[in-house]
């Protein structure tokens, strides 16, 4: 395999979970709920998939459990932000802390299974799903009643209420959808590694969020941004140990590359994009 081929394959492998997570974030934020909790949703889904998958030996039950966990955590975020009016970022950070602590707690408590491989579906299934989801969400937002309600509530919850919509209901539903997609992202991550390890999502929920922002909260541009981040992560994998202009750049410094790209991108492009007007509003 040539280096370029390897790079392309790595790009797809690394960006697929980002795409699923970013789409999850998109549904949530389009309904007006800032979703820093993506990371926690992914991590919990990955952990539950590993535990249930190993315990039952069934890929389909593991997958279902992972998605279910994603929905539950996502609904927690909806509950905290909508029913308890907690600031969306505070709720998201708390959920991330709960997810990191909770998954560590569960894996340590159930340590007997930890060495076994998690039964999984092949990755191409997820790649197809990610593509199909991007297409479907693009269509859904533009051409369906549900999509229109999502956009309306995300932009102006008060006026939506005047028009007979129920913004709270729309947001709960949006977070169920968000939980499914971010859950899938977590399942894919654990499928790649074939076992769960502490904090294995490694901040990819936040990168997905950055991609979502760079994509202007639109599905196809967000997919593009995810591919870009995937490419830089793939580059990082391949550049480790290479010498640039005679300097020996340590392995760990390359790890900073995708993050650096995110910051530069945010500094450069963001001003032009518009966030949903009702983001974070009660």
């Amino acid at each position, binding site marked *: 395999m040539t280096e370029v081929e390897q790079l392309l394959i790595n790009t797809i492998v690394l960006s697929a979970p980002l795409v699923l997570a970013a789409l999850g974030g998109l549904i949530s934020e389009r309904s007006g709920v800032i979703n*820093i909790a993506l990371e926690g949703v992914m991590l919990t889904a990955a952990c539950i998939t590993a535990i249930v998958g190993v315990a039952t030996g069934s890929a389909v039950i593991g997958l279902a459990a992972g998605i279910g966990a994603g929905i539950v955590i996502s609904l927690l975020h909806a509950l*905290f932000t909508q*029913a*308890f*009016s*907690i*600031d969306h*970022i*505070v*709720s998201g*950070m*708390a*959920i*991330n*802390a*709960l*997810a*990191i*602590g*909770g*998954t*560590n*707690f*569960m*894996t*340590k*408590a159930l340590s007997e299974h930890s060495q076994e491989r998690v039964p999984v579906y092949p990755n191409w299934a997820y790649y197809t799903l990610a593509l199909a989801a991007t297409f479907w969400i693009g269509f859904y937002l533009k051409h369906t009643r549900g999509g229109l309600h999502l956009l309306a509530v995300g932009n102006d919850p008060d006026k939506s209420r005047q028009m007979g919509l129920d913004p709270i209901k729309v947001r709960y539903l949006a977070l169920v959808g968000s939980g499914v997609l971010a859950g899938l992202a977590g399942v894919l991550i654990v499928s790649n590694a074939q076992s769960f390890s502490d904090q294995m999502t490694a*901040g990819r929920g*936040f990168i997905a*969020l*950055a991609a979502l*922002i760079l994509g202007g909260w639109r599905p196809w541009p967000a997919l593009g941004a995810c591919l870009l981040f995937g490419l830089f992560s793939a580059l990082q994998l391949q550049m480790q140990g290479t010498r640039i202009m005679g300097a020996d750049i*340590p*392995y*760990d*410094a*390359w*790890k*900073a590359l995708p*993050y*650096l790209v*995110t*910051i530069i991108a*945010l*500094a*450069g492009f*963001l*001003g032009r994009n518009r966030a949903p007007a009702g983001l974070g509003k009660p």
Partner: protein
Amino acid sequence: MNSLGWKQIVLALVAFGCIALALVGIGVMPFDALSELIRGSLGTKNNWNETLKHTTPLLITGLAVFIALRAGLFNIGAEGQLLVGALVATAVALKMPGLVGAVLSVMAGTIAGGLWALPAGLIKAYRNGHEVITTIMLNNIAAALAIGLVAGPLRGGTGLSTSTDVISESSWLPNVYQDLPFRLSLALPIAILLVWVIAVWIKKTVAGFELCATGANPKAAETAGVEIKRVTVRAMTISGALAGLAGAIQVLAYEHNFYAGFSSGFGFDALGVALLAGASAWGVLPAAFAFGALAKGTTSLQALGVPKGLSGLLLGTIIIVFAAYRYRKVKSHD
């Protein structure tokens, strides 16, 4: 709705009930865990020592996050700013031992922390890029950079591969009280002094007033002649500088060198401290102490076979319960 908020009480009961159930699930009685938590943090002189040692960086980083929060900014980047501050402070102290070196080291760490937060402030103010994303990215870069540097240029001559040399004892921050094994480092009084300075600055200066106005309602602040972009950048930089200072003090007072895994997530706990602190800087004091005791206590709990993830569960639960109580709806007329 009554003022106590039954909904919030139910939430608290359910949340802590879940944690208790989880403990029972691994064969630990919740009451035993609680008493071990208290004993482990406040039971002996040595435990007090460790708790206060843990409280100090939480106080300063908590203050850092607090001041950003007052300006309406979520500085999730205190972790990275602390690392950069500690790294730079170590480098300076290694080059220049002695009192002058120590002072320069603290200054350098503070400035480094401020500079590390600056891009997040600028991007927020002038590009409308959310500071949560940028500070998390800056955290990751700081972590990679720190590991890269201690594995490379700053790697110590002795022992561990991922650690710098120990700084000269002449630049250590002294203890103000000693009753072995209990030591009270000068770091804690310095941290408390900082709380006082920030509390007064916020309450009694025009700059503090304008910072809080920006956080409470940026549009109203702008109409009132506050330059909210400048205030945003300033608040983020001050916040980063404080976190950098926390890193520098951590090096000079307790750690004496920099190594991979230097921070045990002080920057993240700091967010909890700042949220718990409420509207006044003085609130940072009890909040930091509570989190310090919690961190020390959960370490002791690991001896009982309780996974360390318990601290994350407790942190998240406390933040949620507290936030739910604070933001409960109060009836308004309008």
